[in-house]
């Protein structure tokens, strides 16, 4: 029997489904790709449901979407505490040991990453118009995410953080000093991100380069290297240093269309 491959996450789905069982992307719509190869992240339909491990996630709303998770016994999810919208009282909570407290403090990253354990229901949302981006991770995958952009991750994913090299990033903000790194080992997992505005993804070939406004960067495969490129701009007596992120393939790069530009705090 023919199965339907999800164009976003490549998972196989049984015939008759209208949304992917793994990431929620519509299966009855083609990927929307711009002339230069940027793919729009799929707009998850209101009330779309998908599964991870033994749990389910339902996405509600379209302007500031909510991810409502029904955790099965034995499953858990981790998240930054301020993105939790509501939870059932009996859902047990704990804290994830992230390590590197001082570095995280300097990098402006959350000290406490909370963990919710099943069984029970819990919901998450962010504070601005945007899209939820569901990224299922196969075993042995690594993905780097802009700080504060991740909404929730499943328990099988190892969570750490990496420093962005380059003094310019330290001094001038951009996407910040650190990025969240999510790694899977033997089990698959899922992370859900929130991108401000609309989200687009492009897959870079080996050696292929693209310049991205650091405030627009959302995520990348860890195989994509990120360098800071300085552009000196002069207008009369005025001089301005502009920093762009040079992304070099191979791998996926995700950007958000509403971004925080240089010098503005998140």
């Amino acid at each position, binding site marked *: 029997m023919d199965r339907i491959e999800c164009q976003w996450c490549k998972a196989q789905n049984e015939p008759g489904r209208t949304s992917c069982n793994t990431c929620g992307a519509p299966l009855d719509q083609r990927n929307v790709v711009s002339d230069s190869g940027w793919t729009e992240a799929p707009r998850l339909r209101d009330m779309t449901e998908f599964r991870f491990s033994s749990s389910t996630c339902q996405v509600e709303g379209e302007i500031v979407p909510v991810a409502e998770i029904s955790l099965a016994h034995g499953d858990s999810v981790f998240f930054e505490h301020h993105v939790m919208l509501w939870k059932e009282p009996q859902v047990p909570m704990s804290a994830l040991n992230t390590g590197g407290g001082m570095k995280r403090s300097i990098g402006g990253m959350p000290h406490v990453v909370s963990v919710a354990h099943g069984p029970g229901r819990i919901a998450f949302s962010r504070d601005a118009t945007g899209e939820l981006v569901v990224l299922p991770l196969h075993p042995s995958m690594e993905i780097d995410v802009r700080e504060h952009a991740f909404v929730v991750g499943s328990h099988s994913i190892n969570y750490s953080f990496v420093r962005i090299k380059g003094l310019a990033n330290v001094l001038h903000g951009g996407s910040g000093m650190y990025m969240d790194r999510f790694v899977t080992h033997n089990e698959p997992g899922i992370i859900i991100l929130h991108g401000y505005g609309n989200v687009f993804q492009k897959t870079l070939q080996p050696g292929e380069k693209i310049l991205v406004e650091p405030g*627009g960067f959302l995520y990348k495969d860890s195989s994509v290297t990120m360098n800071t490129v300085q552009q000196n*701009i002069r207008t009369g007596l005025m001089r301005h240093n502009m920093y762009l992120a040079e992304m070099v393939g191979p791998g996926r790069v995700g950007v958000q269309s*509403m971004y925080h530009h240089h010098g503005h705090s998140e």
Partner: protein
Amino acid sequence: MSTPEGTSSTYTCPYCRQVSDGGGYSCTSCGAPVDIRLKVTKSGWAKQPPIKDMARIKFNRSTCQISGTQVPVAEFNLDGEDSIYFSHHVLLHADTKVRLEALKMGGGWNRILAGMPLIMMTAHGAGHLAISADHPGETLAIPLAHNHAVDVVEHRFLVATNNINYRWENSGVWFTTQDGDEQEWHYPIGQMMDRFSAQGGPGLLLLHGPGNTFIRDLSQGESILIQPDSLIWKDTSVRMHLHFEYPRGQYWFSSARWQAKSMWLRLQGPGRVAIQSVFEPPEMVGSIMNSSPATTHYW
């Protein structure tokens, strides 16, 4: 499909007034959908439909593709002989082969004082680059015919083709208030306004309108009152001045400070005006002491 001999299929876009064959699903000059009915409110405002996802707009030898719906991205496929300019903070991504340079502009000090963007960049083809704003809303495409100009409220400009001349002028709309010993100057639509005019051929101007956008074609002498902060752009032929209303007379409870008052921007035709549904109400603390030409009405 052939066209019967002696006839031709022409379509005049109700939003940008440009003529095309209307064969596609969107206007090739401004990207507005052609396959939906013009929605006009009973009072005469036409809701400008959002540019459809992935619609293409042609200009010179290049194309601009609009993608996304909440905070749309304008993605340019620039020909080697074309170039565009924009404020540097709206650049989202670019091919490494696109040449980025600063645009030479005078009047830097005035621009600083008026809170206008100081650094403008030009991008020269060939290659792809993308521009986006940082607020939810709509991208508005305004094709400008040779020698045609429009006035745009500051901070609405997104990007323009290089044959569009850019200058800025005093908006001429201001008032002062007195609260105790403090006198304050107010510029309800900004101290400056951007003026864009096409030179040496048609050009393309892209703006960003937060919220939804409505346009209206005012006839000669017709006027309308709007919230000053909702104005996006207007034809240069449209005149504007302030209008104050005092619902409880000039002074309420014998206090000039707490007098009830409201302020509007009067737009007078002929010409097109565009407003956005998102705005901030003006600050109106204190007595109005002086203003640019204005009308007053006491209820």
